[in-house]
């Protein structure tokens, strides 16, 4: 029973920590995008494109650990 509990705990902690990392990264990205758009409003098109692209890449990294958490939840057996 402990193995199942530890698996669920690990999955929850892992998903939460990954969200913290991803949120912090995308938050910094968004703040840089806001500042540079305020500095130079005519570059907003380029900045918007790059912002969405890099946000998707950072989100991809956070989703790596979602996969690990899903594996932990659905494959763990009450050994």
């Amino acid at each position, binding site marked *: *029973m402990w193995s*199942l*509990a530890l698996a669920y705990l690990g999955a929850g902690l892992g998903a939460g920590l990954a969200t913290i990392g991803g949120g912090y990264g995308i938050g910094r990205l968004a703040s840089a995008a806001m500042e540079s758009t305020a500095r130079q409003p005519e570059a907003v098109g380029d900045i918007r494109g790059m912002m*969405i*692209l890099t946000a*998707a*890449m950072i*989100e*991809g990294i956070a*989703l*790596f650990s*979602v*996969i690990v958490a*899903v594996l932990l*939840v*659905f494959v763990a057996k*009450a050994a």
Partner: protein
Amino acid sequence: MSLAMWMMNVAMAAEEVAKHGAEEAGGKADFILEEVADHVLVPLPKVLGIDLSITKHVLMVWISAVVVLLLFSLARRGAGLVPRGLANFFEAIVAFLRDDVITPYLGDDANRYTPYILTVFFFILTMNLLGLVPMGATATSNISVTAALAVMTFLIGQVAAIIRKGPFGYIKHFIPPGIPAFVVPILFIAEIMGLFTRHFALAIRLFANMVADHMVVFTLLGLIFIFNNVLVAFFSVPAAVAIELLALLIAFIQAYIFTMLSAVFIGMALSEEH
């Protein structure tokens, strides 16, 4: 001392709850995994250890291939110096991909690898979008599909590099220039590992994004059934709609990211200097 006793009591109570709760929680949450997993449609025998059954994801891959072939065959009719109709629409996308994605990374080889890169983009985009319609499944939410695409990018890059530089030049490509000789083995291994990790991450990124989108939608809607309360729907359904719209955006973005990174990796394999 009492803290330890309290913790032991909590542990024993948790064990009791877990014994009863494991079956229930597992049973109620299993349907979420069922939705994103593959379903066998036509069972076929195993050949050389490979299960050839036609599953829903296999069917969606075939449908996507047919859709892409049909769309571009129809678009050929309007192709020309001034494209008309469907060709006009595709030419805008193709021109954007070639000028902003392929040429910066591939340079002179752009024309040679553009067909593969464009095929990858439209194929992945079609598979992603077909997963968002009702009764459709996302073929790219199967690790085998994304791994096959990443293996294709890997093979194209490495085989082209071997053909262009020869086997000895290909090995030399992994050794950065201007470093002392005793560091070379470590850096060589690091380069090789980086090569495999890049392509592995390519497959996992697309797979994880597609699975996560659908799983979040199903989990939100499944909350209604887990709580057995219709009032949860007033929260779940708008949230699920918002996540589904985000999934539409992610479908386009992930297809673009896979395509761009494929161009980058092929360019990196073919590059002369390190």
